[in-house]
C-alpha cells in the first residue's frame, strides 16, 4: 500500500512516478511530485521507482476560476 495525496492506494511492482501519474489519470501538465518529501524532477519520472509504503504527493498548480 502507498499513499497518494494522503489517500491509500494499492502498490504494485515496478511502479514508477510516470506510471502512477497515468494510473491516477493525472494529466495536468503542471504538477509537482514529491516521494517521501523529496522533490522528483520531471525528467526522472520514468526512472523513479515507488516502493511499497511510500508517501507520494502530486500537487497540481491549477489556479481555476
Amino acid at each position: 500500500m502507498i499513499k497518494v495525496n494522503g489517500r491509500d492506494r494499492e502498490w504494485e511492482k515496478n511502479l514508477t512516478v510516470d506510471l502512477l501519474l497515468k494510473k491516477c489519470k493525472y494529466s495536468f501538465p503542471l504538477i509537482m511530485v514529491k516521494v517521501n518529501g523529496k522533490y522528483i524532477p520531471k525528467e526522472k519520472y520514468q526512472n523513479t521507482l515507488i516502493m511499497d509504503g511510500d508517501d507520494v504527493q502530486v500537487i497540481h498548480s491549477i489556479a481555476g476560476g
Partner: protein
Amino acid sequence: MSKENKDNQKLLTSFEFEPGKVEKGYTDRRLYINLSENKIEEKPIDLEAKETFTGGRGYGIWYLWNAVSSNTKWNDPENEIIFCTGPICGVTQYSGTGKTHVVTLSPETGTVNDNNVGGYLAPFLKFSGWDLLEIQDKAKEDVIIFIDGNKGKVVIEEVPGINSDTYLLIEKLTEKYADDEKDKRNLSIVSSGRGAENTNLGILNVTWYDVRRKKVRIKQAGRGGTGSVFRDKKILAIVTKYSGVNAGSNNAAYPELLKKAGQRLTKEISKLDHIQNGMRETGTVNLLDHMQNYNCLPVHNFKFGSHPDAFKIENKIWHQRMTQNQAGDSCWMGCAMRCAHAVDGFELSTGPLKGEKVLVDGPEYETTAGFGGNCGCFDPDFVLEANFYCDNYGMDTIGVSTTMAFLMECYENNIINKEITEGLELNFGNIKAALELIHQMAEGKGFGKIAGLGIRQIKKILVEKYGADAEFLQDIGMECKGMEFSEYVTKESLAQQGGYGMANKGPQHDENWLIFMDQVNNQIPTFEDKAAAIRYFSLFRTWFSLVGLCKLPWNDIEPEDNKQKYHGMEAAKVPEHLENYCWLFEGVTGKQLTPEELILQSERVHNLQRIFNLKMGFGTREHDIIPYRAVGPVTAEEYESRRELYDQQLQEIVNFDIKDKTTEEKIKTLRDYREEQYQKLCDAVYERRGWSSNGVPTLENIIKLKIDFPEILELVKKYQS
C-alpha cells in the same frame, strides 16, 4: 445614429466639474446622478468610509447600504447602480489593474450584488475625477450619460427608440463620440441589450478599443442581473471619455514600488505563461480540458463531470478558432497577461443578425462549459453563436446556460413538455432549440419569458402551475440565493461546495475556487483546514475588488519555484504575488500594508456584505443551503455513472455494507452522510469567520472589525441569541 434618432435626441441636463485630480490613487469624490430629477452632483467620499472600506466594492456596498431600505426591491427607484474604482485601479506598470466593480440590488437574489469587469471604464472614470459613479432612480425614456473627463462635463441626453443591443450600438456610439480614429481608444462605453430588459439575467458590456483590429471589444459584468437594473433605469449607455493616461496618472506615493512589482510579474508572465496556463494563447478556456480530465466539467445539468464528446470543444479547438497570430489582447493598458481573445468573421446562422459576419469576444471557459457541456451541445459554432447573442442581447452566459441545462433536464423528465415550451424540444444537445430559446428569452416571448426569470422563479412556477415535484426541483435546480451556479462540478469537493454556498452574493467562483486543492491535491483534509481555506481565500479574493484589480495575475501565473519554496495553503497564496500587492498598495497610497492588514481590509467589507444580506431578509444559515446536485448524486443514473467511487466511499468512509443494497438505498445513505458533512463545514466556517451558528456576524466580531456603525449594530443585535 440614424437621422430619425438624432431628431429625437433631447438634452436633459448637463453638469460641469473640475477635471480629475487623483492623489495617491484616490479622488475622494463621487459623481451622483438622479435620473428622474435630472440631477447631477459632486459628493465627497466620507473619510470614515475610506478608512473602513478602502475603496472599490467596499465603497459601493457602503453607499448602496445607505441608499436603500430593507424593503427596497431591485426595480424600485431608490436602488442604485454604482460603478466603483479602487486605489490601484489604472496603474499601468502592473498587470490586471483595469477592473470596474459594479454594485446594485440584484433582481435574481433580491440583495446586494457585486460584479467585476474589464475594459477601460474604471480607470477613465477615476482619471476624470471620480472614485464612484452612483446612479439612482429611473429615466422616463432611454438616456445616454456622457462623461467627458478632460472637458469636465457630464451630459444626459434622452434618446428614445434606439435598439439597445450591444453589438451595433457600441460601434455607432464609438463613431459618434470619438473625434477621429485615434480618439476611439479614449472611450469606454457601458451598454446592455434587450435581453436585459426582458429577463432577470441582464449583464453590462464594457468596451475597450482594439487598435490592432480597429474594433470595439467588450468585457462583461455578468452575474446577478446587473444589466437588468441598468435597463430598468432606462440607461441605454454610459459613455466615458478620457485621454492622457500615463504611468503617473494615479499620482502614486512611491512609483518605484509599482515598477518593482510590475517588472517582477511581467518577467514571470513572459517566461512562464506558455508552459503554465497559456492565458495569452486561449485565455480561461484552457481550463476546459482539465475540468473534463478531472471530472469537474458540468455535463447535462451538472449530472456528470465529463463527456466523450468534450474533445469537440477542447482547448486545441479554440487555439484554431481564435484569430490571433500573437499573444492575446489586454483589456487594460499595460497588462502583460493579455488573456482577452476573439474569433473574427464568425457568420451567424440565426437571429436578427443572421448572415452577418461578426467578432465574438471569447469564448471564456464558463461560456464554453455552460453551453457546450452543461447543455450537452458539444459544437464550437453553437458555443460561439450563443456567446455572441448573449453578449449582444445583454444576457449572462452562465445564468442562461445553467438555466437552460436545468430546463433540459426538466424536459427529459417530462416535468415540462412541448405544450409548456410552446413547441421547443429542449433535449440535451438540441442546438436549434437552444438557440431559439436564447432569442425568445431576449425578446421576452414564448417560453423564453419563463426561462428568463432564472431557476429560482422557474421552480416556483413549475410547482405551482404544473404540479412539479418541489423536492426534485430543489435537488436539480442549480441555484443558491437565487443565483445560478457557475460551471464547475463540486460533488467531490466539500470545500468548493462551501465556497459556493457560503459566498455572499451567490454561487459564483470569484469568491472561492478550491476544487483542486481539496479534491485532487487533498491539501485541506479536515473541516478546520477547509474552513481556514474558505475564510482566507474568500477574503483574499475580495481584496481585488476593493482596490481595482483583476484576479488572474494572482495565480494564473506563478513563480517557477513557488510550489517548491512553499507548501500547502501557503503555496496557494502565491506569497511573492502577495508581496507584490503589498508593494502596490503602499506604492500608490503611501500606506504600508502587511498581508494580515490586507485580509483585515477585506474582512470589513465581506462582513458588511453579509450583514447587508441580513438587512434584505437573507444572510442566515438557511440561505447557504445548496441543491443536492452540487453535493452528490441525485439520481440512479448519476450514481451508476460513478458507482465504483461511491460504493468505495460508502464502505470505507461511511462504513455502510453495500451488499444486496439497491442503488436507491445507497443514494440515500450517501446523501445523509454528505449533507451532514456540509452542515459540519458550515459550522466550522462560521466559527472561523466569527459568525454565530446561524451564520450571522457576532457583535464582538463587528466591534473588532470597527464596522460597528449604529444601524449595523441595531440590525445584528436582533439576531444575537
